């Protein structure tokens, strides 16, 4: 354990430190080591992104190839008038914001409650890792069948027994949206919990001791001492959780397929249907560009927040 377990990841430190003048032999050696890696990354990661942007200016319908050609901003014009796109964007915003907020709140809450070391802590920390290791498609299938099926699913059974009654978990629009948000939150809250627990354990003890004397209440200690100390950890968790939420596809596809209707259709699912079911690749690309800008924009904002913390 270092002084601060939650640290700005390697690359960020790299960006924050001043570069020294490279020497030729060292640079050549570095080029040899990094060359193949970079070529592969440029070819497999950067090139597809540039191609995606280019594709978004073309009409490319695999179902009707004769219409292939440059259309300029036509795809984007179409997107502006596409109600299903705006709906998907709304669902994406709602899904991302609520899952990240829930994970932060639950993760932080649980970590604070279990702040002091307790017997069996190592076992609990290991077991909560398990949801994160499961394939999201398995999580989607597990919830769709064993847990949320009306009458036979365990969660629904608990609702019936406790007098709350059976619910249309995945077949009614509002319930379905809540269900997929809870599924995602279930799978990834352990990440937030583990990061917050580790950062709490690594906080310097003096300010906390002083706080115990100065602060009148537990709330004051939390608000004025703990939360400010945890801000880098909170920013970091928010970044990674946002990236995962914007990547969501598997669990929703497996549990609802975006339905009922389009109730749980996030942008990723809509692009999937446009590009791979209806085979409108050009239009799908313009939707993909929107998702790309959204992801980069949000993470850039969160990184600014993190950087201002470090500096």
């Amino acid at each position: 354990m270092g002084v601060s377990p939650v640290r700005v990841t390697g690359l960020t430190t790299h960006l924050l430190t001043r570069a020294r003048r490279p020497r030729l032999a060292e640079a050549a050696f570095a080029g040899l080591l990094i060359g193949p890696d970079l070529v592969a990354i440029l070819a497999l990661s950067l090139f597809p992104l540039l191609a995606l942007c280019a594709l978004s200016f073309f009409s490319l319908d695999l179902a009707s190839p004769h219409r292939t050609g440059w259309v300029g901003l036509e795809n984007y014009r179409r997107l502006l008038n596409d109600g299903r796109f705006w709906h998907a964007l709304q669902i994406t915003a709602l899904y991302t914001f609520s899952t990240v907020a829930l994970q932060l709140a639950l993760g932080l809450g649980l970590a604070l409650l279990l702040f002091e070391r307790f017997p069996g802590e190592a076992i609990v920390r290991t077991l909560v890792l398990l949801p994160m290791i499961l394939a999201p498609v398995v999580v989607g299938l597990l919830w769709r069948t064993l847990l949320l099926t009306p009458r036979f699913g365990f969660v629904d059974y608990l609702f019936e027994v406790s007098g709350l009654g059976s619910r249309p978990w995945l077949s009614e629009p509002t319930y379905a949206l809540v269900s997929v948000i809870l599924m995602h939150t279930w799978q990834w809250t352990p990440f937030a919990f583990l990061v917050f627990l580790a950062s709490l354990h690594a906080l310097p003890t003096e300010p906390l001791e002083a706080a115990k004397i100065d602060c009148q209440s537990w709330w004051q200690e939390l608000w004025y001492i703990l939360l400010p100390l945890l801000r880098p950890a909170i920013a970091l968790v928010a970044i990674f959780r946002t990236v995962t939420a914007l990547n969501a596809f598997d669990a929703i596809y497996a549990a609802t397929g975006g339905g009922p209707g389009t109730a749980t259709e996030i942008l990723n699912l809509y692009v999937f249907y446009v590009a791979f079911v209806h085979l409108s690749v050009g239009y799908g690309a313009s939707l993909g560009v929107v998702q790309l800008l959204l992801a980069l924009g949000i993470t850039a904002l969160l990184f600014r927040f993190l950087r201002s913390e470090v500096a």
Partner: protein
Amino acid sequence: MRRRSVGQGLRLGVVTGILVIWVFPIVWALVTSFKDRRDIFTIPPVLLFTPTLDNYILALTTRPILAHLRDSLIIAGLTTALALLLGVPGGYAFARLRFPLSRPLAFLLLALRMVPLLGFILPLFLLLTWLRWTDTYQGLVLANLSVTLVAATWLMITYFQDLPHELEEAAAVDGASRWQTFLWVMLPQARGGVAVTAVLTFVAVWNEFFFAVVLSGSRVRPITVGMYGFLQFDESLWGPLMATAVMAMGPLVLVTLLAQRHLVRGLTLGAVK
């Protein structure tokens, strides 16, 4: 004294709650895989029942589960090997060597790490279709590499950065060349990081579904797509589905339980040491 015992009761409650919410569903899936159809659909749910292997037998005999597992193993294994071969030296250079453009390149890596998989899939689909590489191992390996290579390089940077600078200085004093320093001094010190990167890359590819569903077909079909196909047959095949899920996820769960101390840091992408 009183406050202390209240605190302990509260903690016990919280721990129980955590275990019920996060562990019970997984245990329930495991239990269900050993239930016969009648026991699965009994209300209230039964905890005592005669365990049976019928679901496993049914899954293995009626669906090509073993072929799916083999496909996943080949794709995840090859992707992991390539990601390490390229990402470990790359990570070392980023972490420890000075070279021109290192800062913009590091920034590029950071930005690419944040890109949703969706950004890669459309152009790769067209490219692989053009190469006639959809529904092949090499197609799925390349697609998976687009996401995992950036992540593996990133992860290796964090591990190499943690090594003390005295190591290189000592190697230089002993007259080691740059290659010798990298291969015989630094790499052995970072072998834990290499192992974690290998496990996490493998797990990510093994669990991958989006690429698999778009790029696989009748010849190559990873286990994630195979599992999804179960319910399309028959909505009520819970037992065989859970048996397959146990076979597919069991090895990953075991590795996690054994290596959790090392994996936590990697799973949190270097955020927790």
